[in-house]
């Protein structure tokens, strides 16, 4: 299939870019790690220009995670540990990589939630559910590029499922519900159309990525791509150790997160900050605490401190501020200013 006579190898296709080899973009990487440690965070929205490595980073994180055990024969990625599979799994266990599902713009509701299996229905007269993208993303990542251009009702649906971790289908005479727990990652450039504030509010975290400006960073990006282009296997091997370190960090943080103590005064701090910046509603506070707790777990600490709140606040709150037509100050600046005032 590959055209070696022309010296062409589709090398970019086979290998992803290692997570640890991504240059800069620290806030985005941190937000993705938080989502990997604390899936209840409810999705990450990445704002930024095209070509800033948004999808590369998300994909890299998914491929870094260890393969997961699933019940063989189950199309819904059922975990062998836990409730018994009711989807025709045969009781054996197989290993599969953590799924990373790319939701294309223009995907229909059918393809997303799943639909009646026409083949079975026509041939066997049997009513059977054919799983959609949500089932395929279960226990993995669902990535939506240019989510701001996606139909609003689909964004609604995705956020609903992502929050409830369940896909409920009631249509065409089907009544199906299955687990759909995934990290939702949306990306888009607000200059090309914005997301409705109500939808935005439902994302746990948001980050803003910019194209790197520093000369060193730009040269380093080229150097690493050059290295990967020349020798994909060697490049992957070179970064495997660093990726493994990140993996162990995630695993340790996952194990530790439920033990992280949240002192009352920190809760009060979080509430005060939300009030100060005008991020109303419980979602902001919840996301702030959860993100900060994940950060302290990643740091290997057992108690949530103010520094974690500080680090998590811009990510957890910047997309929830009520827009003020008269005040053109960026959301991040407003949050930082409020923290400066509250915790000098």
């Amino acid at each position, binding site marked *: *299939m*590959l*055209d*070696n*006579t*022309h*010296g*062409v190898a*589709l*090398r*970019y*296709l086979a290998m992803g870019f290692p997570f640890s080899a991504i240059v800069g973009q620290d806030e985005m990487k941190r937000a993705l790690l938080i989502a990997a440690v604390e899936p209840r965070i409810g999705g990450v929205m990445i704002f930024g*220009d*095209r*070509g*800033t*490595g948004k999808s590369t980073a998300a994909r890299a994180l998914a491929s870094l995670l260890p393969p997961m055990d699933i019940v063989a024969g189950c199309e819904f990625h059922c975990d062998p540990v836990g409730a018994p599979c009711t989807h025709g799994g045969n009781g054996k266990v197989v290993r599969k990589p953590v799924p990373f599902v*790319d939701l*294309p*713009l*223009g995907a229909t509701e059918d393809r997303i939630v799943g*639909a*009646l299996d*026409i*083949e079975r*229905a*026509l*041939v*066997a*007269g049997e*009513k059977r559910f054919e799983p959609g993208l949500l089932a395929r993303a279960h226990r993995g990542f669902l990535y939506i*590029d*240019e989510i701001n*251009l996606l*139909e609003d009702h689909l964004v609604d649906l995705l956020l609903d499922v992502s929050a409830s971790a369940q896909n409920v289908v009631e249509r*065409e005479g089907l009544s199906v519900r299955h687990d759909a727990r995934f990290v939702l990652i949306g990306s888009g*450039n*607000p*200059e*090309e*159309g*914005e*997301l*409705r504030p109500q939808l935005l509010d439902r994302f746990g975290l948001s980050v803003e990525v910019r*194209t*790197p400006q520093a*000369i060193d960073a*730009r*040269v380093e*990006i*080229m*150097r690493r*791509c*050059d*290295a990967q*282009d*020349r020798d994909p296997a060697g490049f992957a091997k070179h970064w495997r150790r660093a990726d493994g370190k990140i993996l162990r960090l995630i695993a340790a943080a996952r194990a530790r997160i439920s033990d992280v103590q949240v002192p009352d005064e920190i809760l009060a701090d979080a509430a005060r900050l939300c009030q100060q910046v005008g991020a109303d509603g419980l979602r902001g506070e919840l996301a702030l605490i959860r993100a900060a707790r994940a950060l302290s777990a990643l740091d290997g600490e057992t108690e949530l401190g103010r520094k974690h709140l500080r680090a998590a606040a811009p990510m957890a709150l910047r997309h929830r501020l009520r*827009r003020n*037509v008269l005040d*053109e100050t960026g959301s991040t600046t407003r949050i930082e200013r409020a923290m400066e005032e509250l915790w000098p």
Partner: protein
Amino acid sequence: MTGPAQGSADAVLMARLLARDPAGLGGIRVRGGPGPASDALLSVLAEAFAGRPVRRLPLHIDEDRLCGGIDIAASLASGRKVESKGLLAEVRGGLLIAASAERITAGRAGRIAAGMEAHGFALVLLDEGGEDEAPPASLTERLAFDFTPGQLGENDGARPGNAPPPVPRGATDAEVLAAIETTARLLGVAGTRPLLFTLRAAAAAAALAGRAVISTQDAAEAARLVLAPRATQMPAERPQELPPDNTDPDRAPPETSQTPEDVVLEAARAALPPGLEMLAAGRMRQDAAASQGGAGEKRRSPVRGRTIGSRAGMPGGQLRLALVETLRAAAPWQKFRRAAGGGQGLVQLRREDMRVRRFESRAETLTIFAVDASGSSALARLAEAKGAVELLLERAHAERAEVALLAFRGAGVELLLPPTRSLTRARRLLADLPGGGGTPLASGLDAARLLAEASRRRGRTPRILLLTDGRANIAADGSPGRARATQDAAAAARRILAAALSALLIDIAARPQPEASQLAEKMGARYLHLPRAPAAAIHAIAAS
């Protein structure tokens, strides 16, 4: 620098580089309509990609054919599900050619982009868009080359030859990487993708020459092809931004010991498109191109012909059959119907199974603010109009409304804000507003009408909000003089009436002006006297 021979040679070079590394370089955007020039390029490409799949992408290809899916005809015939491979998968590692690329919708572009990542084919976008339309930025971003085949006449015999076998490649010299980075920065090329394209084009050039390491010359060629068309500024404009260890790009290149930076930058500079001397103009060109992509996609995607589902009903007339949904509805009953013994055929359809497509019929409005920015009160007026635009955009999400802002003053009209739904974008573009000078009312009206008509062709419902005192003093041809100017304005107003556009004239003079109300009458617009026109009031009117 780029004569016919150069243009032709460049086309051949691009084709060969692309054939070397289709996945890494993405493809070529070819500007200008079809003609011998683009045909010549395509034949060069076809030759370079000989032995690999080369396919054309029809504009109206359906989703299943593009991405693969159930082959309905075959499924019905055989009674089991027959999957078909999509076009994007078929063209793996080859070349996909899209004509009329400016008409590709955002959704389609997303699929194609995903296909490029999954299947590593090269994409050729034949961009026939011209000024007001461009292919989606999500695709043009992924293409290394941007080619205007004006110079490519007869192919002068330069043909892609047989490529030498690949050589294992060595690490690229740090100086060469730095040279590419510096050149991109000095030319004002933003983003990291162009850097990687340049690097990969250089690597492909090295491979074509049978070199194991990218030479300075390879990087120079690559910079010329990849970076020069993306330049937004002349490199000499910002010499102070050079890192201290760099040489001054202004200095005449020394005969000996040229650094890689000099060579690469010189090569790119020599190929800069004409007219780039005007720094600001260059920036605006890029801005416009970038925005067209985004805004254009949005304009096109959700209207006309986008299905949002189906409902029960008989096809016919305007109603189109939704085949899959019909089969789905019929499927559960098949066994039962067969048992009941009614009818023949593999699938037994009943009237109640029939489903028709439901199209999205959201009325998307475009409010065009045409603001008289002449005279002394211009700044205040523009500021209020800007306020109204922002208030309108605050709610634009819910209403799917778009807003545009034109200002006319002095001798001309300026489109300050192309149609957009984005508050962020509006803020940036309206940050500083020009004002003052004469009143070219006729030009302002014509510009508003053209914009309105263009948006109507795209399925929008446009309306014009004109803020003026109706007193023109610059004629349509730019010459001063009240009489001519008034005549021209009246003619322009009648053209708005003839185009049956909904319009509203807000008279912003301190007292109601007869000129303004007459003008409103001529263009069939509602007339409203609203001195000083506060933003909130304009917004209330516009939102009503």
